[in-house]
Every structure is written in C-alpha cells, then in structure tokens.
C-alpha cells in the first residue's frame, strides 16, 4: 500500500489514512463476523421456535376411537406471529408416512437440525420432530414437520446486525475525529513555524522561535536557524565586499575623470597626448580591477559549482608566462620558468590559472626594470609546489599576513595595485585544499610559495 502517494502529500491526510484505514479494515472484519453471528442467532431462535411449535402440535396427537387424531393447537401457529407476516406450514404423518393433517407436499426435513428449502416459491426453514403416541402401534412415532417463511428470521438478523454496524461506524468516526484533533494539536508548532518563516520580510534572517515545539520538530527549527545564520553571514560578507569594491572603484574613476578634464583643457598638443595616453592606461587598470573583482566573487565558496579538473600546473604556468612575456620584455624583466615535468593537481582549472596570472602579474608589477621573475614548479611528498620569486621590494615580515586581506595595500607603496591579487590567490588555493606562504628569496625580494595536494598517479587520461 503506497499511502505516501495519498492526497497531495499532506501529512494530515497521511496520518489520518494510516490510522483510519486500518481501523476501518478491522471494523469491516468485525462487521462480517457480527453479521454471521446475527444470522446464527436468528437461525437458532427460529429453530427453537420450530421445534417448540412441532412439539406443541405433536403433544395434541392422541388416539381417539382407535384412530390417530391430530388437532393443531392455535398457539403452535401463533408463536410465529412476530408482525412480519410469516406463513407457517405444517404436516403431521405417521411413522409409515400416512398423512394425518397439514400440507402433503411440504418438503421433508431431517430429524435433529433444520433445513432451508423452497416451498410455493418462498424459502422456508423447516424442522421435524418425532413423537411417540401411546397406543398408536406401528403408526408411532408420528413425525411433525413445521416450516416457516424467513421474513421474521431475516428481520431479526438484520436488527441484530444493524446495531453492531452502528456501533462500529461510531467507533471509526470517533477515532477519526480524535486523530484529527490530535494532529491539529500536534502539528500546531509546525504551522506556527510555517507562519513564522512565511511572514518574515526577506532581509530578516533572525532565528525563528517556536514556543511549545516538540522534540521532533526542534531539530528542524535548529537546522533552519543554523541555515539562516549561514546565509546571513554570507550576505554580510557579500555586502562588505560590494561596499569595499565600490569604494575601490571610486579613486580610479576620479583619476579617469581628472585626466579627461585635463586633456580637454590642455591646448599644448604634447601634454594633451600625454594625458590621453595616461587616460588609456588608467582605463586599462580599471578594467583589470573589475576583472579581479569578478574573479574574486567567483572564487568565493558557494558562488561557483565546485570543479575537480585535473590540470597540469606546469602547463598552466607555461601558458601564463607566454602570455605575460611581452609585458616583461617591454620592461626589461627576465621572466623564467624552472620545471622538471608535469605537476598534476585537482581543482578548478580556470581559477587555478587565474591564481598563477595574479602571482606573475604581481611579481612583474613590483619588479624594477632589469630585475627577474622566476616561476618554479616541483612535485614532492604528495605535494605540488609552485614558487614565484621576484627581486622587487618584498613585503616586511609583519605585513605578510595582512597582504592576503582584500584591498590591503602596503603603506607607502608607490605601485598602484588593486590590493586584490593576493586575496584571489589565497581564496583559490584554499578552495583547492592548499596553502600559500610568503617568504624572501636569498637574493631579496618576494617569494610566494603555493602548496597544493598532488593529484594521484597519472591515470593516462591527463
């Protein structure tokens, strides 16, 4: 039985069905037996009456003037007058089968017990009684057969059964009502919870309180509250980020506007040209900042379906370096890759590549012309190691933890970074289950070390 499909998935209907349907089944079995009982009772009563009536008739049979005289006493017939207009038939015959009185074609019934038979198109219930008559000789014992139509019998059975039926029905109905009342009471906290959740304004993520909630419902409420707390924390982080991002966009926008105004007012062609070139560079930086903001929002947990690409860090780094090479050459920076074979890791390929772009971009940005930037890859002890070293100004030890914070910029730094590059790196690396640390190469500058879990041995499909 699939009660789960009942109704429209209503808990109330389900519980009602689970209680009332079995109860109704039991009641049906009960009714069936009580009908059989009623019939048996009616049979018994009718049979006793038939035997009683036959005895009353038999006792009136006596020898008179050497012959058997059968006179039927009215009481023997009237005892069947129960108001159901039953017809009573009888026959009195000798042991030899000679008819003394009554209906000769009345069906015979066995001694002891009774039978049902059709007579004159009516079903009859018949009983036969043998009775010894003193002095009757071979005619004794006589046989008295009495039959009665079934109206009284059926009415009695019906009456007996109907009262049982009414009782059963009342029982099921009362049980149903109690189930409904119980459910209403039991489900009330759930309904209150529904109302509490439904009535909230969308921004209101305060914990729900449902007084009187049962121990079964309380975990649901707690889970709901914990979930809302998580959503709230995430929304708060998002809001902070957006506020910060808006804040960070304002200064570059002011710069663009200033450069444009300057160019518009300047009449000397050379200065104007210089302002326009600077304007172009500024808008490029702004575009890069917008791109980084987007990357960072994508790197946030929950904002992107987690991916488990198998990517080769060496290949990815090579690709990034090839893209960045023109910028390095232009600034006379020696950009190099040191690797000894593939370094496979599992993670989001796009984000891991973006992470390398940010590291290399940072290193180039803070390197002076003539400096060098080295990207080194190694795989050891189940760990992939990506190191990006530059010979720039480096980061003082006490600042190293802060530079991973979004929009954090070193005091006194002349270079106009967005303050997002390392934040992106950390977010991506931690999402991939790795860690990132800052250090100083022996030659000075900055060394960024990224460690990621190495992917399992090459399965030939990488």
């Amino acid at each position, binding site marked *: 039985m699939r009660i789960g499909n009942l109704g429209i998935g209503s808990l109330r209907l389900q519980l009602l069905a689970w209680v009332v349907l079995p109860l109704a089944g039991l009641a049906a079995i009960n009714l069936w037996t009580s009908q059989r009982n009623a019939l048996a009772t009616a049979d018994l009563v009718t049979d006793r009456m038939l035997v009683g009536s036959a005895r009353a008739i038999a006792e009136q049979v006596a020898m008179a003037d050497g012959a058997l005289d059968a006179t039927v006493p009215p009481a023997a017939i009237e005892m069947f007058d129960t108001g159901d207009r039953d017809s009573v038939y009888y026959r009195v015959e000798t042991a030899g089968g000679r008819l003394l009185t009554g209906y000769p074609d009345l069906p015979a019934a066995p001694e002891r017990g009774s039978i049902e038979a059709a007579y004159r198109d009516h079903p009859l219930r018949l009983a036969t009684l043998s009775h010894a008559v003193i002095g009757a000789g071979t005619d004794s014992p006589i046989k008295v057969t009495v039959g009665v139509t079934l109206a009284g019998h059926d009415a009695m059975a019906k009456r007996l059964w109907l009262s049982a039926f009414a009782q059963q029905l009342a029982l099921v109905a009362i049980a149903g009502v109690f189930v409904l009342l119980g459910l209403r009471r039991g489900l009330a906290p759930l309904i209150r919870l529904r109302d509490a959740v439904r009535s909230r304004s969308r921004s209101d993520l305060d914990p729900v309180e449902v007084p009187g909630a049962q121990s079964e419902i309380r975990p649901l409420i707690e889970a709901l509250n914990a979930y809302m707390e998580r959503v709230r924390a995430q929304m708060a982080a998002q809001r902070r980020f957006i506020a910060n991002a808006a804040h960070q966009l*304002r*200064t570059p*926008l*002011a*710069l663009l506007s200033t450069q444009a105004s*300057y160019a518009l007012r300047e009449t000397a062609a050379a200065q104007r040209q210089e302002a326009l070139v600077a304007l172009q560079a500024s808008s490029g930086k702004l575009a890069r900042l917008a791109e980084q903001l987007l990357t960072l929002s994508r790197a946030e947990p929950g904002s992107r379906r987690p991916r488990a690409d198998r990517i080769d860090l060496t290949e990815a780094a090579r690709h990034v370096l090839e893209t960045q090479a023109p910028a390095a050459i232009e600034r006379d920076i020696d950009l190099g890759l040191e690797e000894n074979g593939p370094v496979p890791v599992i993670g989001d390929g796009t984000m891991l590549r973006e992470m390398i772009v940010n590291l290399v971009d940072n290193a180039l940005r803070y390197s002076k012309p003539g400096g060098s930037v080295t990207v080194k890859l190694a795989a050891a002890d189940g760990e992939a190691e990506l190191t990006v070293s530059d010979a720039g100004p480096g980061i003082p030890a006490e600042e190293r933890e802060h530079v991973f914070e979004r929009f954090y910029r070193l005091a006194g730094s002349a270079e*106009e970074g967005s303050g997002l590059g390392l934040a992106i790196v950390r977010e991506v690396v931690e999402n991939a289950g790795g860690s990132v640390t800052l250090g100083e190469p022996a030659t000075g500058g900055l060394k960024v070390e990224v460690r990621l879990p190495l992917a399992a041995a090459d399965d030939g499909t990488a």
Partner: protein
Amino acid sequence: MRLLLVEDNRELADWLSKTLRQASYVVDVVHDGEDVEHALAAGDHALIILDLALPRMGGMEVLKRLRARGNPVPVIVLTANASLDGRVKGLNEGADDYLAKPFQIEELEARIRVQLRRVNDRTAPVISCGDLLFDTNTRLFSLAGATLPLTPREHAVLEQLVVKAGRTVSKAALSTAIYDFETDADPSAIEIYVHRLRKKLEGSRVQIATLRGLGYLLRQDDPAP
C-alpha cells in the same frame, strides 16, 4: 593661491595637481598624513584638499590635529566613502567641505573658489582694484575690460596682491605663495615679476607700490586732481 593636496594615490595626486596648475593655482602634493604638518609650516597654504584614506595617519586624524592646533585653513575633504555618516563626521571634525570620489574637476574647483572667497571675507566673485578686475571664477585678470595676459608666476604674484588689496604683502610671503616645493625658491626673482607686472599695468589706474623693508602693496591711483 597656493593649495596643498594630500592624496596617497600618486597618479590621482599627480593629475589633479596638474589640472589645478592649469587653472593657475600653485599646488603642493604630499602622499602621507604625517607630511601635512611640515608642508603647511613651510608653505602657508591657502587651502587643503585632503583625502581621508591615507597610509600611516588617516585624513580624519590629520584634520583633528590641524584644528587642535587652531589652524583655520579651509579644508576640503575628498573621500571614496560617500555615506552620510562619513560626511557628517568629517564636517564635525572641522572640514569646511566634503566631496565624494569620483568627482568632476569643475565641482572641486568651484568649491575651492567658495572656500577661498569665504576665507578672504568676500562674497562677490570679482575682486576689483581701480580698473583691474580679478574674476575668481574664471581666474582671469582684466584691465580696462581687456584680458590681461600673464605668465603663471606673474599671475600668482598679482593674485596674492589683489587678494590682499590695500594691505602690504612681504616679499617672503609672495615667495611662499608662488613657489611649490619642487621649485627652488628665488626671492630675488620676485623683483623681476613685480617689474614685469608694473610694465603690464602701465597706464592703468592701479600700481604696485614698493615699501622698503616691508614689501609690496597694490593700490589704486588717486584720480589726478
């Protein structure tokens, strides 16, 4: 007029000062809150444009210290935080005006003019001395109805004199007003600028008088009797 721009974003500071110099202001730039005090002591600036997000010492702290020392120099605060709270806090700490980034340079200039007029107790945008007029909005001088062509240095000297019209301006004060920190101040050059200005003002009803040991004074010729 010599202004002090305090802004840590070097590019913005660079281009903002260039644009203000286009409008004949003398502009000094510092990138750090801690440098403001020294700059002010050396430059006697007429106005400060102060960014709030500064490394080491924040703009709000700079402002607080400035006012605590009783320095009344007008301060226009620049900030990337345009919230009402921030604005009110800035004004309460003694800022004279508040401008949220990004802004149009025209608006910044208009606000600078308002503050400079206010500090010189004037409400009219045009200062006159005889037939010499200085329009503080266009920042142009005109003499007898015709625009007076001036080099930036001459402009700075004459502006200083016209703003203080009727009062003596010392040679040192003039020197401070016209040279920014990047230029080697040359007090003797002042005499050359004054000389050139006198030539350009010849035949008009204003003249620059020299008061030996005191300085210079812009004054109106008494109408010939």
